[in-house]
């Protein structure tokens, strides 16, 4: 007989499973999560629906289809939809070609420095699209653009000549594609890496040549990834606000997102019209995410890496270097040139003044660091990013833990709930939040809280997927073995679960923190004078053509992001950005 065994009689009724019978804590967990889901998703979407069927000015008017008729009958409102669809298809197609070819090159050929290309493409997530677009104005503006000036200088052409004009729909497509092709790249690379090269070798042995194998074996096998990549890129092009706001509006064009904002900032109360206008976007976006899920099957989100074993890379021969240079072009356009342009401009007095000492100034930095409104926006941005990252990570970590450890009844729905907002475009969510929380009894509009809700909702799926992936790698037996060695639940948590889960939690925090720093499409509808954030200030400055301060703010934003990434690499390891895709 052991001592422990002798203690048993007194402890029998204290056994844990019986304790759970006395008090069913699953109800509390469900109630809390349900309330959260209602606040974050259900109520805003419901209010959006409701508003779309009421005429805003006429409270007594009651139910009407007038908003839908207005939204889809008028040419002025119909055209942005057409433009948006065209944008989505063109950007999706270009991204598909560029992203898929680069993925194939990195995965299957003897290209030099494949990791440089891979990591460079991952890094292009660092530049916010609206900053990239602004930087491209400096580079490819019709008159003052450096690339145009440079060409005129070389070929001694007149001031009338220009090669690039970013303020065109082509320019918009170009700028968007720079930030959407990485989505295709990541999905297709994962797809390619998951195909065992044995399958391709078998085709070669059976007599298929390199190209025959590629078209009859490889291509059909990655077809789901190609389709998913296209959907992702097209969806992103559809819901982006920053690039069309910066480039299309000066060109006299609206997209659905900019038109939506025009409704919301209008002198008239057009909430009903805006809600109706947001519907096709919402339905399309959810439909696209849903289709992608079906096509990709259970591999809902892909990770770079994967298995597949040894590969025999295809020899590129004399094309090795030219193809490498070609692969670097999108990277240079997406990261190197914009960053350089922003950095240079931020130290210039006059945009057209050239790279001379007399044109050097620190005024832009002085301005943004002393201007009260800007300083407050920096404070708000960082505060909001910390709040969103912390909030999303806590909710994600708890729901992932419950889901993986099957802790409560209905745990299998946990993942669905945490990723429910995944298809909702940021700007549509913002209209919904505006509709839901500007009136009694929940007046959040005008506070940071409404923006916090927007960020939390928008990034919860990302945080959940990261936390969930991290937990999957912790085998439940690691906890059970701790238990049987004599540790109670709390000690198991402290000694095993937290140390092993920590990395994924930190990664998920940083993965929410970074995009929250530059969130624009929801913020631009929800800000008020006291709750401006950096991205909103940049758009403001842009409308006032304060390009120098924009560059300085942009550099500051990039610096904060880089610090966050550096911390992430250090604490969570070099692969922590993988689930960003």
């Amino acid at each position, binding site marked *: *007989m*052991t*001592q*422990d*065994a002798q*203690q*048993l*009689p007194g*402890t*029998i*009724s204290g*056994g*844990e*499973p*019986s304790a759970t019978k006395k008090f069913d804590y699953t109800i509390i967990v469900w109630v809390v999560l349900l309330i959260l889901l209602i606040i974050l998703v259900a109520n805003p979407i419901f209010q959006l629906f409701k508003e779309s069927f009421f005429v805003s000015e006429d409270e007594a008017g009651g139910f009407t289809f007038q908003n839908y008729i207005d939204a889809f009958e008028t040419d002025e409102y119909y055209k942005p939809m057409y433009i948006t669809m065209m944008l989505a298809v063109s950007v999706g197609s270009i991204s598909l070609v560029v992203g898929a070819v680069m993925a194939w090159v990195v995965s299957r050929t003897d290209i030099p420095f494949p990791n440089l290309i891979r990591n460079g493409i991952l890094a292009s997530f660092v530049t916010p699209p609206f900053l990239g677009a602004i930087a491209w104005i400096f580079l490819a503006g019709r008159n003052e653009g450096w690339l145009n000036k440079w060409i005129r200088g070389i070929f001694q052409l007149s001031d009338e000549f220009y090669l690039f004009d970013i303020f065109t729909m082509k320019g918009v497509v170009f700028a968007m594609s720079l930030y959407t092709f990485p989505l295709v790249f990541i999905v297709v690379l994962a797809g390619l890496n998951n195909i065992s090269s044995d399958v391709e070798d078998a085709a070669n042995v059976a007599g298929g040549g390199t190209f025959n194998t590629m078209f009859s074996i490889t291509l059909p096998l990655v077809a789901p990834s190609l389709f998913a990549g296209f959907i992702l890129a097209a969806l992103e092009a559809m819901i982006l606000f920053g690039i069309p706001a910066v480039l299309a509006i000066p060109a006299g064009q609206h997209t659905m997102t900019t038109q939506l904002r025009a409704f919301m900032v209008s002198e008239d109360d057009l909430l009903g019209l805006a809600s109706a206008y947001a519907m096709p976007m919402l339905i399309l976006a959810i439909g696209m995410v849903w289709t992608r899920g079906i096509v990709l099957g259970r591999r809902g989100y892909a990770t770079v890496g994967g298995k597949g074993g040894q590969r025999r890379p295809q020899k590129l021969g004399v094309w090795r270097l030219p193809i490498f240079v070609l692969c670097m072009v999108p990277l240079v356009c997406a990261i190197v040139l914009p960053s350089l342009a922003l950095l240079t401009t931020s130290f210039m007095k006059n945009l057209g003044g050239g790279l001379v000492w007399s044109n050097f100034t620190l005024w832009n930095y002085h301005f943004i660091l002393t201007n009260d409104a800007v300083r407050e926006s920096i404070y708000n941005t960082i505060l909001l990013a910390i709040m969103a990252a912390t909030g999303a990570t806590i909710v994600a970590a708890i729901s992932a833990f419950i889901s993986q450890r099957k802790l409560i009844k209905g745990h299998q729905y946990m993942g669905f709930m945490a990723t429910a907002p995944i298809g909702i475009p940021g700007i549509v969510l913002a209209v919904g939040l505006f509709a839901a929380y500007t009136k009694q009894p929940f007046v959040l509009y005008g506070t940071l809280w409404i923006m916090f809700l927007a960020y939390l909702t928008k990034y919860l799926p990302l945080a959940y997927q990261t936390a969930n992936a991290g937990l999957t790698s912790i*085998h439940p*037996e*690691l906890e*059970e*073995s*701790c*238990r*049987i*060695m*004599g*540790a*109670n639940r709390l000690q198991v948590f402290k*000694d*095993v679960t937290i*140390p*092993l889960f920590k990395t994924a939690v930190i990664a998920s925090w940083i993965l929410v923190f970074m995009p929250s720093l530059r969130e624009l499409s929801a913020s631009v509808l929800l800000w008020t004078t006291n709750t401006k954030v950096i991205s909103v200030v940049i758009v403001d400055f842009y409308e006032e053509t304060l390009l120098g301060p924009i560059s300085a703010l942009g550099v500051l934003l990039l610096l904060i992001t880089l610090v966050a990434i550096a911390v992430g690499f250090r604490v969570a390891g070099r692969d922590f950005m993988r689930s960003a895709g």
Partner: protein
Amino acid sequence: MAVLDLKGLLKIFGTDVRAVDEIDLHIEHGELISLLGPSGCGKTTTLRLVAGFIEPNGGEIIMDGETVSNESSVIPPERRNMSMIFQSYAIWPHKTVAQNVGYGLKFRGITGAEADKRVKSLLSVVQMDHLGARYPGELSGGQQQRVALARALVVEPAVLLLDEPLSNLDANLREEMRFEIRRLHDEFNITSIYVTHDQAEAMVTSDRICVMNSGKIEQVGKPSDIYDIPATKFVAEFVGVTNSIPGKISSPELFEADDGAKFMMNPDGGKTGELVSIRPHRIQVHSENADVGGSDAQNVLDGEVTRGYYFGSTVDYLVKVPGLNEPLRVIGDPHEFFGVGSKVRLTIEKAAVILVSDS
């Protein structure tokens, strides 16, 4: 050491899946018993019930006279003074080998120099004393398995539970670790339950084997009993290969196959049943018309070889025998090889014919 009693133990998953279906099992002090069966037979569930990870829907688990689990209360795993070896080893990747092994000691009030001494001594028992400072990621599968063994034994548990501990090892290592586990059991003599689906593992390691199927216990007994005198068709076929011949008892100790062949049976076998089980290597093959001597102790049958595969140490025959619907599988001696079509005479000792029930 401890005595364990499972009484009417019942575990239902969902609404009607009876994973463990009212089983009774008594385990002696210092005994190593294995739960053997195919996947889904309830063996792992039984083990987890004993560990206290899950609660039973009925029945009870009694340890040294005290109820540790029943329908209304379950003592949590950490208060049972048990150890467990997991299929995945479950070595904590963020702790060194020595930290892994020493972890359980602090809960038993053993710290400092005494704890270090015990960790060192256990590591040397499993031949890992030079690797205490390593992290698990730097170890091979076999070494991780040894760490898991040391970690489980260092706390001198009352009961040791092993959940398919060797299934992740490659074949050679698995064979070596079987003997290692038996050696450690002989050294520490801890009451142990060993879950496996591998009959050879169960044979080598266990004092007794408990064969399970569909949540129920088919048979409990010494390895030789399980093999030589199986109680059911399931046990006979799961533990080794056999010929199962359906028919009925025609007189005491005489079995008549459905197609007419008659067999004298082992009187120590089952008394009721619908089949006899005959192990292929208990059947001797002789040439046609060989003089095998008339005896009450053996059955004699004539037949024709329909298949014969040469394996070096044995020959694997199928022999068609009049009066039997299915050909008999026979493992023969290779020094005398009979080709396909050869007429042969078979002799089967009475002791090799075991009456089994069909359930």
